[in-house]
């Protein structure tokens, strides 16, 4: 028994003899867990529980009927589709931004590094108003695109721009520390052993970054799905074209149809949860495969 307890490298999550929890050098598990549960309960679980309770009046068939309603289904498709696209764009470009910010030193790097966090700090409505005035037909960017017949503001493309904007810091900030920990000596070794640049990037640099990139992707995606403030100003909000699911929730509330509003919220929650679970599984798989955390 005693020898099992002392075993240093037992895998986490295993049941330990004499208790459910692996003993730690520091005491205080009880209060810490109690605090965690109380806090999570108050902040996350009780509100979500209330949401589920309110929607449960409709029953599963009622919720399903609302999900299949044309306008709701279209809005869900737009919300999740564009969020997915925006998160994908952010993974690619966020990776590049993180790479530049960690690997090179240049004048203004710190300023640029700080600027990455701006979408975090900005009230979303401010971001939405700024983006829509920038991308409107008479805005700085919009007027440059207009001669090519490209309309951004008040189209689905506008939604994508807003979602890319608010999602970028999530990807950059999750990839940066992993990239900083990555020894450039490994790349040098790869190069000195005769690998060309593409091979070095594809087989040495990228694999350890994949779990972090996936985390960033998941965070950016989750944030995009729930985004409201910045989107409604630039979306155009035309039903079946550029109307996001959170706006449909607001409309149901305007009709004082609380049950339908919460039902849509629950549907969004379920889809998000399923997608985050999937991303987590992929992440765990890639972590096991590459051996990197």
């Amino acid at each position, binding site marked *: 028994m005693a020898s099992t307890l002392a075993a240093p490298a037992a895998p986490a999550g295993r049941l330990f003899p004499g208790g459910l929890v692996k003993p730690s050098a520091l005491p205080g598990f009880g209060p810490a867990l109690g605090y965690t549960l109380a806090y999570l309960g108050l902040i996350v679980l009780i509100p979500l529980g209330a949401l589920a309770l309110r929607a449960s009046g409709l029953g599963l068939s009622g919720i399903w009927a609302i999900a299949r309603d*044309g*306008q709701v289904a279209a809005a869900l498709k737009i919300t999740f589709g564009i969020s997915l696209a925006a998160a994908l764009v952010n993974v690619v470009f966020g990776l590049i931004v993180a790479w530049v910010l960690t690997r090179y030193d240049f004048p203004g790097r710190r300023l640029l590094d700080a600027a990455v966090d701006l979408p975090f700090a900005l009230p979303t409505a401010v971001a939405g108003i700024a983006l*829509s*005035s920038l991308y*409107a*037909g*008479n*805005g700085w960017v919009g007027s440059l695109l207009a001669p090519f017949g490209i309309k951004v*503001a*008040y189209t689905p493309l506008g939604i994508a721009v807003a979602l890319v904007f608010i999602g970028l810091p999530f990807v950059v900030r999750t990839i940066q520390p992993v990239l900083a920990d990555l020894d450039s000596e490994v790349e040098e070794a790869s190069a000195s052993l005769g690998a060309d640049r593409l091979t070095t990037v594809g087989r040495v640099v990228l694999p350890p970054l994949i779990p972090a990139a996936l985390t960033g992707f998941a965070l950016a995606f989750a944030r995009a799905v729930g985004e409201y403030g910045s989107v*409604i*100003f630039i979306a*155009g*909000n*035309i*039903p*079946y074209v550029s109307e996001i699911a959170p*706006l449909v929730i*607001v*409309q*149901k*509330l*305007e*009709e*004082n*149809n609380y049950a*339908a509003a919460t039902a849509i919220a629950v549907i969004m929650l379920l889809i998000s949860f399923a997608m985050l679970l999937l991303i987590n599984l992929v992440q765990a798989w890639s972590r096991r495969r590459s051996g990197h955390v």
Partner: protein
Amino acid sequence: MTVSFRFARLRDLVLVVLAFGFVVWLTLGAHAADLLNVSYDPTRELYKALNPVFAQKWKAETGEDITIKQSHGGSGKQARSVIDGLDADVVTLALAADIDAIAEISKKIPANWQSRLPHNSAPYTSTIVFVVKKGNPKGIKDWDDLIKPGVAVITPNPKTSGGARWNYLAAWAYASHKFGGDEAKVREFITALFKNVPVLDSGARGATVNFAERDLGDVLISWENDAFLAVNEFGPDKFEIVVPPTSILAEPPVSIVDGNVDAKGTRKVAEAYLSFLYTPQAQKIIAHNYYRPIDEAAADPADLARFPKIKLVTIDDPIFGGWTKTQATHFGDGGIFDQIYKPKS
């Protein structure tokens, strides 16, 4: 050691409780002489002008100081805040349906509220007009011009904006008279109109900003008072107002919130505040702020001259049949507005 430690903690606790109590006392104390007017977007300037005059009058009559707080937003959203517990003393909203919703769901207002004050509880009225670019390049004169191909029309979403419901109904009234009540043709007209709408903003002010600042669209359908404010603010050299020959009589109603004023003990002052809106003194300010006054004799003739006489259809006209029916038929879930956007399958 232990004793003094415990004592310190107890003392801290007492201090925290005292501080908390002080904050609560301050908050409650300050609110005792406050009146909260929950209104919709385009009345911001109007009540800013009316409130100090009422406060002065109240002080002269009773010797009491009163502060009137204003809350503005989309009419439907404001109604929901009151339903959900915002302790409004009075509501001054864009349409009767929103106050009906408060009465029905929260029971804080009796069902017969609209008969408690003169003129359907609407101390001022307005109508729906067009704002176009200076010189009216697209030649917009009447509702028919809004369904022409290539004309971009800006109006907020009737599902979220009270003003937008009046816009929609004004167009409906016009089409209904034009097609002699043939509903299929009226629907076609409304559908064509909304096909020309590139952006549905959630509120009247947002739509105005889209039109005036983002240079979006050729014509803005707007409250008459908001149209005047927009032209004043964004430049008479850039925009002008076109008044169509037919429009709707928009009656933004007011009511005290009985449940709240009784709980707060503000019934007397809240009632006085609403009655004040009907006085010649207030009517003059109302006309000056571009709302059509009930009592035209009280208004400055120069202010009155800005309101052209046009044919105004009311919500009680047989083509609508009152707010309750209109709300359900046109703007309810799956109603006519929802059907406009439904793709043909």
